[in-house]
């Protein structure tokens, strides 16, 4: 009895001091990231790979190390796009815009056919990306949306601040955005889970939304999406297919990244309870029955910690016929894995309904598996009018062009 009283008193003191601490200083609710780092990995040295934020001249890019199937060739198309990620182009492809993360820049690349010139269009932004839509250029930072009107021949002048209309939540982690303009004239915008593994602090995360161009008509079209870094619309069905990163700190072999297909708005893709093809989360789904109930399973898993990024359905005519309608996916490469994985571009061949998916390496050589090192990180893809394919390398700030010739 006495002991109980003491324990209760101690507990209430503790509760009071916790309350007092909270009153002074209100930290975000505690989905502590390390929650996902189990005891047996507590001395792990795995950590994110450092990016490179200085310019790499073409002479220092080991392009000859890249390997492609017979008949394909890679060349350096642009350099000086330091930290460059997703690419978006105007209709005649004379202008390209490329966003970054830490650098805070948006580049405008002028393509005159033979050569490319790179300038900084916007700077000092928090992890900006760009999307060309309906004659205007939209720049999405984590905390800001800007619109450059009349950008068909290049963006210039003061952009219109559209931030208020888009209702962006404040957390930064996993909230760099890949944005696409759909055939329905809407902007597709993801909001990642702001942690490795947690119940998101509010309902504004772990989802994909779409908006009208002016920010109105906000609609959540997919939930349970941890961290999608790229998507494309299927050339036949028009459905949205998207990549998604699996959680970290569950060991070298998974849960694997995903390639998903949104067959109808409102589908749930499992995060935080259900990963890959039905792996129940050991941290947050403990004791939860039916963690995978009503969860849409991926078209295919994409490899452990692979960091699946950009996705591009091939619709050109330059590549051989078997590449028609095939999905190209860039895998930027792992950090949370003892042996590096990914660092390549793969093709995914699947039925229009996503069935029977087969993943095949297409562009390799960015990584040296023996030494467990890498020199480049393929991030995003874009198709040129002649049917060649562009690949951005975020590590070296370069863009490569892949072409095909029978000879």
């Amino acid at each position: 009895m006495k002991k109980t009283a003491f324990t209760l008193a101690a507990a209430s003191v503790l509760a009071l001091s916790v309350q007092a601490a909270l009153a002074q200083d209100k930290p975000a609710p505690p989905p502590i990231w390390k929650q996902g780092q189990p005891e047996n990995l507590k001395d792990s040295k795995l950590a994110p790979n450092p990016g490179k934020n200085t310019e790499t001249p073409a002479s220092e890019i080991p392009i000859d190390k890249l390997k492609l199937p017979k008949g394909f060739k890679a060349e350096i198309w642009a350099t000086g796009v330091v930290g460059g990620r997703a690419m978006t182009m105007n209709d005649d492809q004379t202008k390209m815009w490329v966003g970054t993360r830490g650098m805070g820049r948006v580049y405008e690349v002028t393509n005159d056919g033979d050569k490319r010139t790179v300038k900084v269009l916007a700077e000092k932004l928090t992890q900006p990306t760009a999307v060309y839509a309906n004659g205007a250029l939209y720049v999405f930072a984590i905390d800001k949306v800007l619109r450059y009107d009349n950008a068909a021949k290049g963006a210039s002048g003061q952009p219109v601040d559209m931030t208020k209309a888009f209702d962006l939540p404040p957390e930064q982690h996993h909230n760099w955005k890949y944005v696409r303009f759909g055939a329905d004239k809407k902007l597709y915008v993801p909001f990642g889970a702001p942690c490795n593994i947690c119940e998101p602090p509010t309902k504004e995360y772990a989802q994909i939304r779409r908006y009208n161009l002016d920010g109105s008509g906000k609609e959540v079209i997919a939930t349970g999406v941890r961290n999608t870094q790229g998507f494309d619309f299927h050339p036949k069905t028009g459905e949205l297919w998207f990549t998604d990163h699996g959680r970290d700190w569950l060991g070298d072999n998974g849960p694997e990244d995903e390639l998903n297909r949104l067959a109808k708005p409102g589908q749930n893709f499992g995060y935080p309870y259900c990963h890959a093809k039905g792996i129940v989360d050991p941290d947050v789904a403990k004791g939860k029955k039916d963690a995978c109930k009503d969860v849409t399973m991926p078209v295919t898993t994409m490899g452990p910690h692979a960091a699946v990024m950009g996705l591009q359905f091939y619709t050109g005519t330059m590549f051989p016929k078997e590449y028609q309608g095939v999905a190209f996916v860039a895998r930027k490469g792992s950090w949370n894995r003892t042996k590096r994985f990914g660092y390549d571009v793969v093709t995914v061949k699947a039925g229009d309904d996503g069935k029977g998916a087969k993943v095949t390496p297409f562009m390799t050589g960015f990584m040296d598996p023996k030494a467990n090192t890498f020199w480049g990180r393929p991030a995003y893809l874009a198709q040129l009018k002649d049917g060649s394919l562009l690949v951005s390398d975020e590590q070296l700030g370069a863009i490569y062009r892949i072409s095909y010739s029978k000879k």
Partner: protein
Amino acid sequence: MRFAVEGRWALLAALFISAAQAQVPDKLAACAGCHGADGNSAIAGTPSIAAQPRIFLENYLVMSREGVRGPAVMQALLKGVPDKDLIALAVHFSKLKSKTSEEKTDQKLFNRGKEIAAKNRCASCHEKNYQGREQMPRLAGQREEFLAEMLLQYRQNKRPGGDTMMNATLYGIPEADFKALAHYFSRLK
């Protein structure tokens, strides 16, 4: 533009240069004015930069030049400075030796900081002795008040340009714990 940049360096060098720093190239002298000739800062709120990992310094310098990180004075100083100069500065300071705080240690606070660091697995990225590696800064021997302030800025999403994983790592940690962590790290060699 190029001329203006050189001019600014020269002016700062002239302001801060002393006999002891006479051999240090002009550009380094400007850094030494605040961060100490040996890269160990004696000014509150100004970080020590000696023995910081090269990539961390390089990233910081680029982000400051880009105007996304660091105080206005750093951004102004670095505006327009080319990559190759930033790389040279990073290499230089990464090779200097770090000095530990000589201020009195509060053993209780030190122990608490040690526990909090272990619980949050800070060593997973910042290394066992907290000397940092690659893009992840050295914490050992850093100025106490600077560490406490940076931790808070990270948690409040006010420190852009880095990997946001650090922001997420600090969710839910109260400011009092940051003070203990800062006290502990600053006393390490």
